[in-house]
């Protein structure tokens, strides 16, 4: 039924398009001290940093909470303290000591202390929701977290890991949404039945960030207001209104009319048509999100290495980059996105029908075969899948394309019941381990495995590569570590059942009088804090 509602919303979107058209030339500029953003955020299901794992939710939390540490959105390798003023790492590499910044005030008026930071991390580990693994992978669990993560005085937080990991790995994990500092007193006031305030914080706010959450109506509006006490400069915008506008053509129309200041979900063709508009500029930022085609090795045909190779030669990378992805993505053929430590930028594959035909003949399928491709029903994904359908047909591979609702696709994919899957992977934090962990490591390939990374979902279980990935995780020398990841990717690129196609570039259409809107490499680093209106 979910999909029906979604469709109904599309219809509603079409209606509002008609309404918008009928209002004609009447245009209303947005107030000087407010920013209005048109955006699809129907994926927000919670505003609790311990639970949020959705793109839009993390962006809202990123703008309203302080995390322990943060990184420069233009250069991820520059890590700096946010709620933490400074930190030290012990000799053995297992103990991280953070000094909490003085003078940070929560929206409630309470002063932030190390106790709040410790509580936030403990809470995230104990609740252990979807993003919980980001912290629990350091050997933390419900029973030991209160000893391993604690405030030794009002300004000092100690964070202990079970092994000596690469320091940047630990630090990057603490830049993730889950490391946002919440107001202990305020949250615990609303705790019910030992839920540590989970039910309350889902829809309420207890942070200290540049903005406060005033209101959230699912799939309708999020209202933010400036935090007048913010320690790092009060935002110029008194209010930020995030409006859910599902239809991208409506976003385009409202942006052109000046009813919204920023449109976040313009499609490729719409970007082209607003490009010439002098009142609108486009802000672009390479995201860490990768789009890839994966082949389930449970399928006897797709399990053959030669078939996998052939399919990698049957994708029109360049054509896609110039058409469907024009301005919205760049070709990337390895599992680490450009900009990450040790990302491999080689592009050994291009559309080569002859070569693919040869490989298929060697594999025993000179005339191709029938196969199903599942994909989430969004324009850019479906258009890419259609291109794949066309190029595969050139060697006789008949692709049955099945566009589905996002949730349906994931259900099939996570149960590894697909043949081919085209979709995305977004890094959970800025360290290479986040992708290596899911694409190159599979400790248990049985159907009832406890951990089900993307490699498992495609029944891919490379023994040596799994070992290499775990070794890279504890390498403390950054250069050596980068070299290890390069080697893993080279091998992975050739032998894994994954064809990486594109790395996403996020584009926002912004009115010319808006400055200071920042798109970061991940969604929780998109920021409204420095926005000014001319």
């Amino acid at each position: 039924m979910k999909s029906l509602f979604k469709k109904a919303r599309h219809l509603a979107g079409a209606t509002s398009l008609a309404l918008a058209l009928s209002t004609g030339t009447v245009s209303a500029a947005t107030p000087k001290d407010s920013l209005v953003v048109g955006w699809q955020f129907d994926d927000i299901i919670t505003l609790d940093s311990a639970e949020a794992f959705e793109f839009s939710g993390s962006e809202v939390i990123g703008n309203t909470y302080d995390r322990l540490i943060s990184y420069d959105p233009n250069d991820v390798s520059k890590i700096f303290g946010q709620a933490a003023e400074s930190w030290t790492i012990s000799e053995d590499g297992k103990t991280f000591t953070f000094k909490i910044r003085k003078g940070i005030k929560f929206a409630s008026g309470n002063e932030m202390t190390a106790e709040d930071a410790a509580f936030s991390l403990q809470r995230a580990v104990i609740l252990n929701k979807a993003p919980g693994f980001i912290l629990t992978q350091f050997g933390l669990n419900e029973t030991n977290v209160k000893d391993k993560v604690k405030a030794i005085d009002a300004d000092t937080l100690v964070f202990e890991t079970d092994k000596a990991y690469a320091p940047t790995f630990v630090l990057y994990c603490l830049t993730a949404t889950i490391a946002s500092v919440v107001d202990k007193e305020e949250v615990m006031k609303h705790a019910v039945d030992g839920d540590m305030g989970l039910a309350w914080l889902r829809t309420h706010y207890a942070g200290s960030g540049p903005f406060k959450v005033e209101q959230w109506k699912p799939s309708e509006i999020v209202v933010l207001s400036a935090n007048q006490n913010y320690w790092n400069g009060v935002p110029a915008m008194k209010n930020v209104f995030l409006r859910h506008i599902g239809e991208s053509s409506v976003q385009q129309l409202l942006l052109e009319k000046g009813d919204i200041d920023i449109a976040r979900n313009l499609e490729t063709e719409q970007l082209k048509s607003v490009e010439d508009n002098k009142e609108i500029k486009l802000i672009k930022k390479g995201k860490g999100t990768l789009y890839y085609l994966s082949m389930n090795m449970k399928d006897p045909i797709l399990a053959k290495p030669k078939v996998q190779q052939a399919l990698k030669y049957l994708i029109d990378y360049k054509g896609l980059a110039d058409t469907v992805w024009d301005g919205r993505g760049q070709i990337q053929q390895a599992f680490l996105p450009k900009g990450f430590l040790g990302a491999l930028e080689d592009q050994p594959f291009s559309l080569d029908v002859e070569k693919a035909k040869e490989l298929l003949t060697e594999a025993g399928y000179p005339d191709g075969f029938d196969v199903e491709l599942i994909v989430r029903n969004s324009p850019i994904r479906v258009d890419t899948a259609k291109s794949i359908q066309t190029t595969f047909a050139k060697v006789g591979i008949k692709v049955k394309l099945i566009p589905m609702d996002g949730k349906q696709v994931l259900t099939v994919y996570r149960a590894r019941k697909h043949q081919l899957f085209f979709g995305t992977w977004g890094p959970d934090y800025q360290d290479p381990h986040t992708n290596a962990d899911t694409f190159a490591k599979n400790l248990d390939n049985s159907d009832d495995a406890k951990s089900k990374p993307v490699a498992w979902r495609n029944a891919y279980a490379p023994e040596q590569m799994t070992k290499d990935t775990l070794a890279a995780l504890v390498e403390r020398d950054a250069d050596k570590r980068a070299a290890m990841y390069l080697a893993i990717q080279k091998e992975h690129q050739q032998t894994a059942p994954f064809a990486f196609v594109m790395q996403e570039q996020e584009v926002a259409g912004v009115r010319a009088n808006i400055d200071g809107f920042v798109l970061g490499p991940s969604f929780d680093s998109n920021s409204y804090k420095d926005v000014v209106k001319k």
Partner: protein
Amino acid sequence: MTELKGWLLAENPDSRTQAAFGRGYLGWLRFYHNPLAMIGFVIVLTLLLIALFAPYIAPEGISSGLTGDALKNARFLPPSAEHWFGTDGQANDVFSRIVIGSRITLVIVALVIFTAPILGFIIGTVSGYFGGWVDILLMRITDVFLAFPKLVLALALAAALGRGLESAIFAIAITSWPAYARLARAETLTIRNTDYLAAAKLQGASHWRLISGHIMPLCLSSLIVRVTLDMAGIILTAAGLGFLGLGAQPPTPEWGAMIAEGRDYILSYWWLATFPGLAIFTVALGFNLLGDGLRDVLDPKSGGQH
């Protein structure tokens, strides 16, 4: 010619065949003199011909198969002499896709009108003829189906059955039979107590013989009228399901799905949604006009008034 006409229009036909032909001819005359009905007839006939000869009419098939730079230069071309209705994002010729898509539209209509009305017809006549608990049971089932808006029920069914043309057809058929059942039952009720039925019953005719031989033929013409009037609705429902992504799947050129694809580009490339929309509009109009004309001809209540 005049001889044939005279035979057809004879006031006192010599045989039942002649009488039947005569009635048919009179009907055709009435239909022929109704310009709107003729427009509808021509549209539907054209659709049939287009569907029949689709592979010869459509110059480029449903997929261009272009890649790389060729694709880049051939996509989203506006309507021109070469591409009458322009091209889409995969550089496919929209005109070709619409022509080939006409077959899908016809298949949907044909499959639905050969299932739903027949099912509804049988249920309705049986229900009306027997009355009593049979009537109550069958009509309550009908009520259950009528309790939901048709499109919503079809949506739910199509979603539950999984995406695809087959489930869309099944969903439409399942949701359209109750109206026919009601119609057939109402017709049956008006004739179930007539003398000639009582006479046939006295002669020992079985229930089945009474229903199939006496009741059904009398209800048939109103059913046919209803079906032709519903065809436009069937096309629209199918297009609606396709639009919502529950009907035919890509690259099948189902018209509703084509509109859905074009919707994303409606401000930049108007032709993508416009032409399939016009196709649906024209065909639905054609079936409606044809249905209206047929009602004038076939409706037993207006029979004989020339």
